[in-house]
């Protein structure tokens, strides 16, 4: 399976994602410079974390106009697996591939910490190796991860089961007290209607090896690989 890691000026988790795919998952990975206009030949795309364009104007607001984005949007519309992590999630929102917007954290401070996530469903391409209601530990590191959407959108996300991860405590309680940034309904990650695009604020690439303190994140990348191989087998 071949992953493409899109690199915008200011991306800084691009190498981390690349390393996980190549050295941990053992799959092919290549960087895609944001000035490319084609993403032909890739089986999945990663929009990595970082500060694309220095977060100027608004997080992800300028990156979405990068030359590579029309190709990324086409790729997603054709059902290609696309994961946006942190700044990547913010870009997906700006590009309209996922609904909603990001606000500054409730504390108005950047937060780097380990958090618990509740896996809301395991029948998606990104979560099939996780258990339903499983609690996983994944680090966050962001200043603007306070996900917001209007009530109608939230109702739709809930109705369509598109909330994949929520912030919770070690027992799985999804109380506001365990919500690090103030996001609506404790949302940490959502998918699109077709289920092939995931946006999440936490960083699975930072917990894919035991030496970094945990391997829960690995299961998300491994799920992508598993679902790609399943499609191949069909």
């Amino acid at each position, binding site marked *: 399976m071949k992953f493409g890691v899109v690199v915008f000026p200011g991306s800084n988790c691009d*190498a981390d994602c690349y390393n996980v795919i190549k050295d941990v998952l053992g799959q092919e990975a290549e960087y895609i410079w944001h000035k490319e206009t084609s993403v032909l030949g890739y089986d999945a795309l990663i929009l990595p974390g970082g500060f694309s364009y220095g977060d100027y104007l608004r997080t992800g607001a300028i990156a979405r106009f990068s030359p590579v984005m029309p190709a990324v949007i086409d790729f997603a519309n054709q059902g290609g697996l696309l994961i946006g992590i942190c700044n990547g999630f913010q870009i997906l929102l700006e590009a309209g591939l996922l609904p909603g917007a990001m606000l500054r954290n409730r504390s108005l401070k950047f937060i*780097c910490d380990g958090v618990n996530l509740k896996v809301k469903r395991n029948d998606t391409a990104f979560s099939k190796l996780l258990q339903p209601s499983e609690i996983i530990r994944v680090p966050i590191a962001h200043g603007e991860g306070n996900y917001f959407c209007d009530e109608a959108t939230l109702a739709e996300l809930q109705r369509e089961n598109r909330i994949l991860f929520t912030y919770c405590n070690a027992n799985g309680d999804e109380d506001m007290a365990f919500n690090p940034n103030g996001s609506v309904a404790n949302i940490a990650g959502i998918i699109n209607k077709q289920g092939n695009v995931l946006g999440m604020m936490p960083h699975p690439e930072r917990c894919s090896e035991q030496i970094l303190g945990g391997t829960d994140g690995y299961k998300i990348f491994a799920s992508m690989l598993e679902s790609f191989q399943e499609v191949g087998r069909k």
Partner: protein
Amino acid sequence: MKELTYKEMGLTDEEYGKIKAIMNRELNYVETGIFAVMWSEHCGYKNSRPLLKTFPTEGPQVIQGPGENAGVVDIGDGQALVFKIESHNHPSAIEPYQGAATGVGGIVRDIFTMGARPIANLNSLRFGGLEDARVRELLSGVVAGIGDYGNCLGIPTVGGEVYFNEAYKGNPLVNAMCVGLVKTDEIALAVASEVGSTIMIVGAKTGRDGIHGATFASEELSEKSKEKRPSVQVGDPFMEKLLIEACLELIQEDLVAGMQDLGAAGLTSSIAECASKNGRGVNVDVLKVPRRETGMSPYEVMLSESQERMLIMPRPGTEQRIEAIFDKWGLDAVTIGMVTDDGIFRVMEGDTVVGEVPVMALTEGCPVYVRIAEEPAYYQKNKDFDLLSLGQTNPQEALLKLLASPNIASKKWIFSQYDYQVMTNTSIIPGDGDAAVIRIKGTRKGVALVTDCNSRFVYLDPYRGGMMAVCEAARNLACVGAEPLALTNCLNFGNPEKPNIYWQMQNAIAGMSAAARALNTPVVSGNVSLYNETAQGAIYPTPVVGMVGLLKDIELRCDMAFKEAGDLIVLLGKFRDELGGSEYLSVCHGLETGEVPEVNLEEEKTLLVLIQSLIHEKILQSCHDISEGGLAVTLAESSIKGNIGCNIKINSGEARTDGVLFSEAPGRVVASVKRADMGRLVQLVIENEVEMRIIGTVGGDEIQVEDSGTEIARLSVQEVSRTWREAIECFMK
């Protein structure tokens, strides 16, 4: 802009006279400005150079010692670490956010200038007491500034230290350290190239910000300092991120003969430093420098400290390729001058010569002052303080008080604002071990990093305090399983023209040198920050040590958390009870006095060797050195981190109970060990001739302490943990 006199630029009459004698004529405005910044303490080290020469700087591990942008040490497999620490105190005092942010930007540039990929940032901070609203504002601003800049660069901020003391109320300290990784055959030095080769400026455009920042950094702070806000530069981390990537591409393609960052004194200092390396001269045309403001004079262009700029000396004929790479990253790369053979630093504005000075006069010509040192009266007075006159306190209450002291309490409020995991190498995160540990991808190796300085000790006894700063750093590295390799230092002091301050400098440096020699951790880079004074007086002398160590096998790293019920707790090192200069005296008795505990370098050295052997043989479950708060706080921290209690039995005997519990005497660590491994531990302890005693066991959910059979403390881990966790947060709400 109003023209300044040479005095306003920071030169003395005597210095100006000297310059006139060198030049054999009056100087014009541009030339005066150039001399003023180059002869400032910040650039010229005129008050510290003779003292700095006494540091040990050599060892088989040293690839590059002081004199370059940063020091370099070998870590095997053709790899090396490049590292340095630097101050940004004065800018942070008046503009905390930008001051701290640009401090990070500056030190990071020093590292990638050497061709290294920056892999970790650390810092060392000092503030006044948190009860003060302005201090809280400073802390918030500094932490946000460090975080926003480093986070955007994608360099993890993995460690640091922070202390709060009235001595820093008007003059906080912000020292930033950066560590980079480089292949030994790709190290880039700031050597000037051949005569006729070009000089390019790359990165951000030049504005009017930061003019005379270097001079400002070399004065005492006063009420009028606020007027110097324009001397503080403004940072753009996004620009720096692009600059890092572009510059490292140049190195990979082997396009550069030399690289130099533009820091203090901007274009002036970086050109002078490059040219002075081998007696060359330089012609530079200010009209070619890309600007972001109109109407800038040659003086302003030469002295601007606009951030995120670098000077590049290309290999012959590579200018176009360099321009192409910078264009890819959307950055300027412009040829502004040429290396000459006449030894003259010549500033042109188009065809007009606007300044001409001999390069060597700026660097080698800078005067050196050996000041008068005089032992201050406070030294002997504090040393003679009779600790026996102190009443005993309730040990349990004292422990809780200490855990709530911001100097000891959890620093999570601070480090959670730093991205400490980006680059996916951080194997011991902030707060979990005595030092940060990051892996080197593609190898089994790990690197341990730490900053340390107990400035109260240095104030009370500069010589012992200086030794202790080095010893504690080395001990912290050993406690995570690393072999200490080398150090960088940031020497923060008051006004060296005052004999008592110079005495502090002299003795602290002598102490550091002695310890660095004994522990084989040479000084490979550093920075000096003097004139840290306000109307209220000088700061505590604060020679911060940043040290790096190597773990040959990162899987063997050790943290401070107690692990399993039943494990034995041992004290390695002497049983000591000296309370001089302790946090306990300060917090529980309101005293900062006493004789600083003695330092035995031989014992320290043996202890470090023993700890490393124990960790390499996987005998230790946890390891944590005794420092602020003494034995009791060390035990509490290991319990908090492991979320498990401990039962401690001490026999203070002749000694004071509070002394045994709270002494910060060096050369000691607390470790936990599986019972089954006790035999081997004892064997190694005997072989290494280190003192050791079993002081308790891990288990339960309480920290329980008995002295000679009598219970003196019983606290639930939960309560202790809450006190420790919430202290700083409460202040900052």
